[in-house]
């Protein structure tokens, strides 16, 4: 009996073969043991998790339905609000912040019987691709602790990949679920913009942000997504559309799957071993009856430029709320300190260097004289990128390529911010267009004696989340060799 797999665990708990309390206790023990090595968790919510697990066991004992995720421990990225524990966003700014409410996704997961067991480490305010921009130390990659786990949802990716828990939540603004999933060797799913309520997600780029699961299997990703998705009156950008059940159709392969493979994705700039693994995966899909369709996404290359105008612009506006007045860090009072000084000093002390850079960048591109040249132009290119995807999806069901051009890189190895930004070349356009994307492990490559996981990135048309998950399940089935877990 594998107690990590969320669906298996749920079945075992519901059929009274396993007590939720026992499963959660085992998860907490794993988390505590692994955290010394990985620094994946800011906080392990032991007491609260055991209380929730007992509630599940009590419900079962009383003959009540404990829900579709009964007893499943869930690790939560620390930018998603939970009433228990702190919600720090890995920032000194929110070091002591305790949310007075649960995010909608947390409310729904609890209602489904899931057990929130801890808050995971991340790049500060979700800005980064390595989980090194953290106020309390970096996250380590479970395959090689001298390497980064990717980011910004690095703690959640490490926790899921290392088998600490079957389900972890992340947020994805430009690849922050999918890139770390690829670098750690787990499944990472970013739903269509508007599918999962953003209420309670600390806003970074409001037109780009989306919450999604990081798991060991596509099946668990579908299970978690199904429990969270759907309209929410507290998020006006949550879609008022029925959510197709992704679990029911999951095991049914898509007959004659058409896979778009843009020439731009299998680039010479990628690690050759990444390209080889992606090609091998496509060959296996072809052998199963899928067809490879040539599609063109020539604007792939300007995605980073577009993103690094829009995302910082939205971030500079969203992070204006952290001013030292209502909550968060406040600079010490000093004689002659004006209210403006208090804002600037609080923000200068509370935000780390990467967050400050992005706020500066966003403020610049929105400032008088530059707005049209940068922000206005980026929004127009955004529409062209979306149109390019629309044309491509007229001819294919999914678009495939690498989630990351490289495997996990060395910690401390990337000192130029621009180089770090370029890590997201294959994932940012998904958010720019608002479509769903998923990274699925397809095997391992060798580098300096380390065996490092590689993920295949699939994207689908907006609201085709169930189709995307089905295609991802087909990929997963063809790569049994990728279902290896790191020894922690």
């Amino acid at each position: 009996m594998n107690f990590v797999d969320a669906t298996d665990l749920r079945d075992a708990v519901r059929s009274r073969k396993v007590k939720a309390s026992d499963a959660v206790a085992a998860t907490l023990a794993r988390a505590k043991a692994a955290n010394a090595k990985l620094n994946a968790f800011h906080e392990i919510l032991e007491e609260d998790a055991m209380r929730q697990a007992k509630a599940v066991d009590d419900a079962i004992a009383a003959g009540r339905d404990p829900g579709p995720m009964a007893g499943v421990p869930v690790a939560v990225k620390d930018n998603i609000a939970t009433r228990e524990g702190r919600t720090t966003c890995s920032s000194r700014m929110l070091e002591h912040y305790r949310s007075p409410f649960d995010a909608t996704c947390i409310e729904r997961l609890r209602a489904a019987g899931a057990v929130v067991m801890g808050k995971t480490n991340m790049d500060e305010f979700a800005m980064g691709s390595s989980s090194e921009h953290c106020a309390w130390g970096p996250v380590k990659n479970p395959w090689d602790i001298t390497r980064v786990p990717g980011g910004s949802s690095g703690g959640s990716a490490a926790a899921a990949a290392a088998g600490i828990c079957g389900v972890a939540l992340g947020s994805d603004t430009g690849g922050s679920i999918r890139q770390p999933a690829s670098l750690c060797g787990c499944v990472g799913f970013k739903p269509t913009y508007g599918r999962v309520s953003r209420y309670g997600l600390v806003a970074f780029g409001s037109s780009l942000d989306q919450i999604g699961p990081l798991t060991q299997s596509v099946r668990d990703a579908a299970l978690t997504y199904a429990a969270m998705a759907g309209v929410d009156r507290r998020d006006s950008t949550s879609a008022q559309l029925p959510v197709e059940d992704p679990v029911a159709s999951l095991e049914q392969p898509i007959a004659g799957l058409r896979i778009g493979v843009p020439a731009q994705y299998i680039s010479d700039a990628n690690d050759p071993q990444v390209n080889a693994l992606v090609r091998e995966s496509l060959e296996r899909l072809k052998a199963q009856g899928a067809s490879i369709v040539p599609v063109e996404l020539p604007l792939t290359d300007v995605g980073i430029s577009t993103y690094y105008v829009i995302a910082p612009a939205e971030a500079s506006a969203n992070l204006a709320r952290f001013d030292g007045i209502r909550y968060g860090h406040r600079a010490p009072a000093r004689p002659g300190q004006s209210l403006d000084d208090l804002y600037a000093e609080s923000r200068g002390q509370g935000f780390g260097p990467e967050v400050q850079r992005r706020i500066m960048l966003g403020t610049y591109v929105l400032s008088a004289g530059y707005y049209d040249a940068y922000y206005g132009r980026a929004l127009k290119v955004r529409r062209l990128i979306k149109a390019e995807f629309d044309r491509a999806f007229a001819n294919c069901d999914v678009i495939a390529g690498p989630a990351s051009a490289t495997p996990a890189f060395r910690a401390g190895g990337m000192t130029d911010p621009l180089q770090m930004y370029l890590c997201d070349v294959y994932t940012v356009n998904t958010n720019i267009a608002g479509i769903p994307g998923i990274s699925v492990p397809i095997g391992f490559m060798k580098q300096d004696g380390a065996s490092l996981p590689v993920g295949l990135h699939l994207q689908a048309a907006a609201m085709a989340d169930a189709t995307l998950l089905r295609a991802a399940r087909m990929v997963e089935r063809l790569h049994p060799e990728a279902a290896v877990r790191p020894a922690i």
Partner: protein
Amino acid sequence: MSETHPLTTQETAHVAKLARLAVPADRIEAMRTQLVGVLGHVAKLKAIDVEGVQPMTTPFTQVNRLDEDEPGPCLDIADVLRNAPAVEGRYLAVPKVLAEDAGG
């Protein structure tokens, strides 16, 4: 864009002011160099023909909906205030906003 408007040290300090960020003087130059690097890359956007293209602010395609104006539970004030850096009773404490001689 970046070529025609190279970001000066003075401009960088001005942007920090606009952003309400106290950036120490000895870090302005490093910040400027990094911003110039990113803006140089972003200049790629100039090469794209956007003539007649409407800006896209969000991928959300549904129109805004109006909610029923029904009262519901509110956040507990004690819960909210426990996060405040300084309070006086049920209020947030802030430094004086108006100078003593501001009148009015």
